[in-house]
């Protein structure tokens, strides 16, 4: 097996519960409670679970968007947990995120060029306006949009196109890892298929790895190499996709699989 790109050990995130005028801490919510996983280069880790089970918190804590309470994270062999804020900034461009609601995650007052190109300037990957334009056009080509749309605003696009733009923004920095947090959940099936194909294609051509969060098991099965099933902040089952779907070991995984409506003949 190849060297893991992201390796997480004993990750915990406890949110304190405060009470009263002096905000005395009276307890904690264990949103993520000691999870381990790793993502090898070029692999897709699917994360499933019900809403509120800590999928998103786990992903965000794993890249220190939320400070973890405990645990160690290593990304490309370096410890993320030990990094200072400044050092983290340089790692950020290697890890990108795609969110559930594409319209809410694009700045409505910026054009597509600015939305995609802003990070390029922030990370000093481009030095001039022209260069930014070239890079953005390149990205638009990769995500299947024409470069002519560069000066249009997010509201002029359909949901599927907006999600493409979000993916474009993520890949513009040539990241190693993309975290897709319910990235296809809000899309219709026919559009969802287009986006899933795009994600798959980009993974092959750009050698990306994904941490793919979804509550839709069919989508996970289609895309993921490994699956982690979360339940109340803990990983209850973590195995290669085929094994997990063929032969689920954990009681909760079985309930989850049994709950999916299936197509069957009535007569």
């Amino acid at each position, binding site marked *: 097996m190849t060297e893991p790109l992201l390796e997480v050990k004993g990750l915990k995130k406890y949110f304190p519960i405060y009470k009263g005028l002096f905000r005395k801490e009276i307890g904690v919510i264990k949103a993520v409670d000691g999870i381990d996983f790793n993502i090898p280069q070029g692999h897709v880790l699917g994360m499933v679970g*019900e*809403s509120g089970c800590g999928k998103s918190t786990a992903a965000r804590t794993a890249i220190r968007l939320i400070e973890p309470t405990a645990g160690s994270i290593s990304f490309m062999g370096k410890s993320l947990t030990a990094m200072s804020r400044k050092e983290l900034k340089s790692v950020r461009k290697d890890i990108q995120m795609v969110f559930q609601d594409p319209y809410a995650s694009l700045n409505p007052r910026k054009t597509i060029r600015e939305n995609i190109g802003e990070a390029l300037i922030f990370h000093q990957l481009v030095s001039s306006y022209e260069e930014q334009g070239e890079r953005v056009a390149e990205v638009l080509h990769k995500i299947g949009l024409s470069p002519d749309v560069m000066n249009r605003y997010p509201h002029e696009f*359909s949901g*599927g196109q907006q999600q493409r733009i979000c993916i474009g923004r993520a890949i513009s920095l040539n990241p190693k890892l993309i975290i897709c947090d319910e990235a296809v959940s809000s899309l*219709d*099936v*026919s*559009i*969802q*298929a*287009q986006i*899933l*194909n795009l994600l*798959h294609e980009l993974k092959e051509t750009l050698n990306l790895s994904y941490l793919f969060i979804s*509550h839709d*098991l*069919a*989508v996970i*099965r*289609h*895309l993921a190499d490994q699956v982690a099933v979360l339940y109340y902040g803990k990983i209850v089952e973590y195995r290669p*996709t*085929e094994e997990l*779907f063929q032969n689920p070991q954990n009681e909760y995984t079985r*309930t*989850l699989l*049994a*709950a*999916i*409506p*299936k*197509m*069957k*003949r*009535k*007569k």
Partner: protein
Amino acid sequence: MEPILKVRNLKTRLKIGNDIWTVVDNLNFDLFHGKTLALVGESGCGKSMTALSLMRILPNPPALPPEGEVIYQGTNLLALSEKEMRKIRGAKIAMIFQDPMSSLNPVYTIGNQLVEVAELHLDLYGTDALNKAAEVLTNVGITNAKQRLNDYPHQLSGGLKQRVMIAMALMCEPDVLIADEPTTALDVTVQAQVLKLIRELQEKSGMALLLITHDMGVVSEMADDVIVMYTAQGVEKGNADDIFFECAHPYTVGLFQSRPSLQQQRGKLQPIPGQVPTFQHMPSGCRFHPRCPYVMEKCKKEVIPDFIILEQQNHTAKCVLYDGTEESELNLTRLNKVKETL
């Protein structure tokens, strides 16, 4: 069997500025006692508009009064006055909405909101109304219902809120229940519980269910009959088995092709090319023709009637592939080949 609700040539139009758009286009269907009809389609295809037109709760303006006939017990609901309609709405035809959080009033307790239904439709007041409210909550599987009546919506989980919505809809024992995406906001495990509950209640009371959803899995779990909608029209109609295993319209086939499968890991998905057209740029002829892999010259001009696939099953599709000409037969064999791979 005599249908409970007969819908004929239902047409709903929206007037926005100087444009008039048809959002429900000549829909025909029947709802039968104890049976479930599912309306499936992608967002924006007019599923919810159909439901709202049946209930006559579309805001006017922008909506123009729905045209056609909705026959319930011999009367056309679309011709009733608002006062008469109010007696039927909620009492005889009830509705469950998609998002239970935003359909319940956050500043009243659920007891308060349930009692309101009892007072309006059942002439029950005071303790009688409260008892009735507690009774319906128990029916939908909520334990210690008496205490729950004092809870506010935010104190309940999503699944419980949807149960309260169902309780509220079923309080007057309606003949027809319209469920507009009842489980879309819920987790799969909770979804399974809610669907089971709806099915049990349906068996007990024998109401007809009009289920609106975009999830083919939910359809196969619940429906007896299915209408597939695309751009305001019903493009394919039939019983659930026909739609799932003998689907006829290229759009339905495309929908099934673009679903990732739970049974096996497949390579590339095959999405339907292109996008759903907007109402401003509705193609002439068959509305699916710009995206259809089997498009022929005659698809582009004529208005497409419903072709009968199987007479005795009432299986119809709005597609000229079934007109029996040689050209169509050729394309049809291609379509059937694709169907075998599903």
